[in-house]
């Protein structure tokens, strides 16, 4: 099995040699002869090859390698005057700005160059690791053929057999090599994260602003206008009071009616901003109330221990509301199942309906709106909606249930904490008495050897042990300092990169 895989890798390495030649030609054409348009196709060719290697690493060696590329550039947007701008040039169509952006994206991505390096070295590495036994056997044959001493081919043959036996280990080493060059660097991971956050922030600010505009408009045209009308009518009532009490009374009835209507409008407005049930009862009961008001037959299951943060709760509520509306309006569903549960700190909502399916986030602006709403909280929406139904929409909101304790600093695991404790606790012992003090005793030729171990040793070993002790003490202190720092760094990185939900769309 392992040998088969190794042989297959050898075959791909042969193809790689061709690819190396092709990409070298592409590279030289692009940068040597100025045919820059040759570069993107070359890079794409290499990317196809490395994508295969990443996939194989997952299926054959069990260590999947994520794609390391920076997110592709957004399509160019026209200016208000309809022109497309790229740096100091204006274009009529988005073709050139897009091409320029793509070019910069490919050239500027370190992953492109790491891919290239991997491709160049891969044939050699394949020979040195998975196909080591074959390589050694080849060498043995060569050695036997040439005029080398007869021991050499025998030794090489033995080594080849040993390498054959060790093929699984060599394959693992090869997987590690793939991981080394093909996985994303910390920098590209962070860059992708920043771009995502940037987009999410823009979308959030945008939707907040439009929401505020809507509220302003509703208040202006609704309650505010009605209050003005009521004030005017009351003024008329004041005048009519003495002259025509009957007419005044009729007008008062109208004022009361207007105030009722204003209240109804305000109630609807409040419901759109933050539904009172949500404030009063939390997500579970708010969704139950939503289900009761829905024309569909909705089954709600809620499994939450604590209430999520209020903004998250609101985002989840409106997303569910939108999904429910979609199911009724577009899906033609009759039954809907809503399942709300928590998993660690994440809130997961699954909305399933028995409608006709065919929902696509790329087409429906409703689903896009939900994605935007959730993006502000790192939430991800996954919709599975084959034609003919059923439709299942799932969204995860990581960190929804984060408990706000006073202890926010990441704590060390016990093993590391013990090591740090030992380092700080007894680091002084090799450094001072057994290291530095012994050194001074030695330098000044003090007779009393006391408990300084090094001075009891034969003359030849005394200095090496003293130096070793000093170094040991220093490195213990260094470890005591660096381990918590490194750990905190890792934790921070893990915190800004929440795990995500990936479901097949």
């Amino acid at each position: 099995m392992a040998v088969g895989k190794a042989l297959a890798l050898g075959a791909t390495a042969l193809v790689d040699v061709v690819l190396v030649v092709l990409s070298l030609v592409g590279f030289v054409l692009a940068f040597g002869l100025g045919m820059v348009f040759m570069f993107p196709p070359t890079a794409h060719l290499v990317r196809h090859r490395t994508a295969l290697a990443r996939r194989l690493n997952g299926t054959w060696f069990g260590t999947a390698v994520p794609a390391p590329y920076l997110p592709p550039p957004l399509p160019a947007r026209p200016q208000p005057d309809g022109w497309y701008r790229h740096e100091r040039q204006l274009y009529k169509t988005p073709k050139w700005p897009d091409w320029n952006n793509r070019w910069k994206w490919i050239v500027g991505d370190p992953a492109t160059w790491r891919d290239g390096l991997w491709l160049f070295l891969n044939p050699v590495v394949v020979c040195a690791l998975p196909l080591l036994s074959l390589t050694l056997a080849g060498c043995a044959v060569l050695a036997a053929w040439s005029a080398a001493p007869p021991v050499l081919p025998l030794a090489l043959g033995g080594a080849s057999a040993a390498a054959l036996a060790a093929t699984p280990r060599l394959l693992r080493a090869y997987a590690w090599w793939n991981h080394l060059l093909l996985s994303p660097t910390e920098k590209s991971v962070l860059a992708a994260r920043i771009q995502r956050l940037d987009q999410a922030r823009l979308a959030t600010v945008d939707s907040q602003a439009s929401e505020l505009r809507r509220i302003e408009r509703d208040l202006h045209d609704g309650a505010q206008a009605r209050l003005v009308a009521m004030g005017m009518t009351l003024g008329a009532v004041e005048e009519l009071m003495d002259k025509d009490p009957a007419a005044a009374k009729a007008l008062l009835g109208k004022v009361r009616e207007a105030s009722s209507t204003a209240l109804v409008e305000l109630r609807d407005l409040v419901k759109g901003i933050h539904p009172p049930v949500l404030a009063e009862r939390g997500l579970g009961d708010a969704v139950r109330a939503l289900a009761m008001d829905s024309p569909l037959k909705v089954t709600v299951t809620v499994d939450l221990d604590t209430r999520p943060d209020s903004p998250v709760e609101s985002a989840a509520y409106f997303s569910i509301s939108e999904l429910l509306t979609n199911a009724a309006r577009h899906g033609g569903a009759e039954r809907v199942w809503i399942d709300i549960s928590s998993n660690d700190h994440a809130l997961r909502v699954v909305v399933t309906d028995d409608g006709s399916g065919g929902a696509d986030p790329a087409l429906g602006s409703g689903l896009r709106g939900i994605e935007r709403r959730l993006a502000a909280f790192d939430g991800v929406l996954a919709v599975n909606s084959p034609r003919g139904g059923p439709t299942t929409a799932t969204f995860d909101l990581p960190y929804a249930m984060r408990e706000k304790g006073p202890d926010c600093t990441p704590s060390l695991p016990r093993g590391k904490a013990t090591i740090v404790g030992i380092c700080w606790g007894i680091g002084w012992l090799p450094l001072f008495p057994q290291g530095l003090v012994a050194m001074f005793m030695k330098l000044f030729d003090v007779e009393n050897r006391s408990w300084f171990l090094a001075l009891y040793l034969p003359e030849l070993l005394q200095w090496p042990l003293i130096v070793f002790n000093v170094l040991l003490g220093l490195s213990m202190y260094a470890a005591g300092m660096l381990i918590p720092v490194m750990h905190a760094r890792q934790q921070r990185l893990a915190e800004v990169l929440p795990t995500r939900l990936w479901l097949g769309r």
Partner: protein
Amino acid sequence: MVGPVSPRVVIAEDLYLLRDGLVHLLQAHDFEVVAAVESGPELLRALTGLRPDVAVVDVRLPPTFTDEGLQAALAARRAVPGLPVLVLSQHVEQLYARELLADGSGAIGYLLKDRVFNAEQFVDAVRRVAAGGTAMDPEVIAKLLASTARHQPLGALTPREREVLELMAEGRSNAAISQRLFLSESAVGKHTASIFSKLDLAPSDDDNRRVLAVLTYLNAARG
């Protein structure tokens, strides 16, 4: 239990103006306001301690400003079964209506705060609840009927029967319905009998039981 002359009432409302208004309104209509409180714990103490003939309670009360009033009313009704409570709110939810009706002992009202504008109807609702009846906001009833209409044999009802059912569910008597719809009382009786037969409900003399039967039916049919 209910004094016909001046029923004792407890009012719970956190806004001073509205509380004062309610006190004056009910006093003007021959109620004896034994307590006017402004928070959930106070309300629970007043309800279990004073045992009023009826309580008018706002859903949202301090200290949490969530559904404190509703919870206090439900707790008080668990301690004193059948304690008449009229719940007022800025918004009505089927969810709350069902919770209030769940114990099936009646003497429950659930109205929008706007209904206070119409003093006569409001006082009428308070009296009805005090007498052990129900007073449901038309909006709740409309929502209940709308959300059940698709799956229910309610489709078999004539528009007139639907109107009668809605008013019935609000807690109105046959006499009141006949006045509202400009029908004779016997005609209303015929409509109700027809509704009951179409909905497979055994008719009963008791007004309140009728409403509860209708609501329980609507409730059960959804589950």
